[in-house]
């Protein structure tokens, strides 16, 4: 086992030179990273970047074209059975049985994972409490609302107290309060030493991760703590513009970007504000102001701001490979 990537085999999740091809399409391209014990690791990237494919290879549901993944020291592709007994997984789709009750779903997965009756009773009570489902144990899962479903799915995924948990977009489509509750649960698990790999499209959630891996078109483009990423990954400065006519201003800036008139890395609308990424704030502040004023747009404010994770994300995704 070569360790050329400098990854510590003791770490609970180790990915080495992982590549997955579907025909000519390279879904995951030579990706290497490792996750520390008890870490909440954010696995980020746009749709189709290879996030789920990576997780499925980690779980042994797909075989890598080359490279390897190890979870808790077990090779995902060859020691799948042993690995499955000690990891948990919540997939992108809701995968519990809608025609079973909440309690039946928990019991089912508990028994499948080989829990004793006594253990199962205890876990069932814990999970019902964790998911806030007291009094709804006998409700059909289909009748539960989004937040409850997600928490129940998490409960079923960790019924056997796994050491490593994979969560694939666990909070997609649930309300902000449910999302907040869900992250409280994730942190509670991490506190008990569980390693969590989680994917999300919500940048506020990404900020909550201890470390982040960015994947774009199958390639790992950034890997660090959120705070560090904002410092290191941003090529250029972010200017925030407050203008009288944001739609027109966007069109003008986009045109200037495309024609090469302005070296804008990125122009994006954030509500009523525009974020423009320029090589240097000092050099381009006045250029932008002049351009927009000429078009009759009133520039109310134009400030350099600290990049958000979303700016970093977009910058990383758009960076030339």
């Amino acid at each position, binding site marked *: 086992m070569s360790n050329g990537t400098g990854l510590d085999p003791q770490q609970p999740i180790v990915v080495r030179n992982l590549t997955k091809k579907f025909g000519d399409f390279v879904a995951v391209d030579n990706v290497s990273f490792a996750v520390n014990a008890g870490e909440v690791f954010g696995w980020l990237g746009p749709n189709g970047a290879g996030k789920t494919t990576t997780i499925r290879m980690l779980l042994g549901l797909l075989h890598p074209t080359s490279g390897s993944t190890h979870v808790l020291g077990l090779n995902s592709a060859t020691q799948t059975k042993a690995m*499955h007994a000690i990891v948990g997984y919540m997939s992108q789709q809701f995968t519990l049985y809608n025609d079973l009750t909440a309690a039946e779903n928990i019991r089912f997965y508990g028994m499948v*994972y080989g829990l004793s009756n006594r253990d199962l009773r205890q876990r069932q009570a814990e999970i019902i409490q964790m998911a806030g489902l007291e009094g709804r144990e006998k409700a059909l899962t289909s009748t539960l609302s989004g937040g409850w479903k997600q928490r129940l799915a998490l409960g079923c995924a960790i019924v056997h107290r796994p050491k490593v948990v994979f969560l694939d977009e666990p909070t997609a489509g649930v309300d902000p309060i449910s999302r907040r509750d869900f992250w409280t649960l994730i942190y509670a698990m991490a506190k008990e030493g569980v390693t969590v790999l989680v994917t999300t499209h919500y940048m506020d959630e990404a900020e909550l991760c201890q470390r982040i891996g960015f994947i774009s078109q199958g390639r790992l483009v950034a890997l660090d703590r959120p705070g560090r990423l904002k410092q290191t990954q941003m090529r250029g400065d972010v200017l925030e513009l407050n203008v009288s006519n944001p739609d027109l201003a966007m069109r003008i800036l986009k045109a200037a970007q495309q024609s090469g008139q302005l070296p804008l890395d990125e122009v994006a609308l954030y509500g009523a504000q525009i974020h423009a990424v320029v090589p240097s704030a000092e050099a381009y502040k006045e250029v932008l102001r002049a351009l927009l004023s000429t078009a009759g747009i009133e520039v109310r404010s134009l400030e350099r701001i600290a990049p958000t994770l979303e700016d970093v994300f977009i910058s990383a995704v758009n960076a030339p490979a």
Partner: protein
Amino acid sequence: MPKSLRRLAALIRKEVTQLLRDRRGLAYMLGLPLLQLFLYAYAVNTSVYHIPTAIVDQSRDRKSREFVQALVNSQYFNATLQLENGAEVMTAIDKGQVRAGVIIPPHFAADTDRGSATVLMMLDGSDSASVSSGYSAAALVAQSYASHLATEQVQRKGIRTSALAGASALPITTSTRVLYNPDMIDIWFLLPGLAGLILQTLAVQQAALIIVRERELGTIEQILITPTRPLELVLSKMIPLLALCLLTMGVVVGIGVFWFGVPFQGSFFLYFWLTLLFIASSLGLGLLFSNRARTQKQAQQQALLTMMFGLLLGGMIYPRSAMPAIPRFIGDLLPMTYFVRASRTIFTKGVGLRFVWTDMLALAIYTVVVVLLAARNFKKRLD
């Protein structure tokens, strides 16, 4: 091992809960076989009764009149026209006035006394049901009439009946049908095979849908990352359906016996085991389809194809002995083929294990092979 059994128990319990909770699906699974049974039993009647028939009686004696009366009494023929010769009968059939003609030649009485009477039967070949019904009915009447005559003749001469009864029987070709089903009641003949078609359709269809359904819902992905083994999963899908299909079989046979009055001649115990093997093999075949199908629609299509092959090649309606090698081979791949043969043997003939053990053994081997194949083909992976 106990862990494996515990997983199996959990999986089976889950399947049963889901099956019982899906009232609509359950009603469909129990209702469809009954619908099929009644449709086939009542609508698909290959016997045609009261065929309008032209009579040409050139013999004009007591015996010829008796013969005509016997034809009418058989319920298969209505003597609607009295004509003079064969040409007139042809015209009447051409015009559609009648669909059959009976021509009794002169000297019919004398010929029957000699034991070699010939009656010409003309049948409308454009209506195959009338032809086959009319032909077999007339042949049967002719046989019973002739043997009746023979018996009468023997008694008049004062010779002991029993000694000559066999000899007096004309060169009669007795078919199985006549042996076990003297009145040729269609449902008697149909039911043992029909039960096979109905149950194979149900079992293959339900089994074909059951794994692919979880694949479509995405729930399979969650199961795949548990320690569940493929064989456990396959068995857990199979066992509840097996119970349900056995129940359905009980209802179908029960209706056949008590509603349609089909006599059950053989051993219930033996029939139960035959059915069990048959249903298990059909479910296994369905599960094999389910593994290969990507969508429920694909699985449904494969199930439909199996039903069509079963209907045409399984021996329920069309005799397999008349089939060319390739269709017969396709029939050999269906559990139904073995069941239909053995089912008739037990149900209608009432004979025992000695005559059906080969079919039962074939079904047992079939079951083991398809279940293992289904488990083997069931990949614990998604690619």
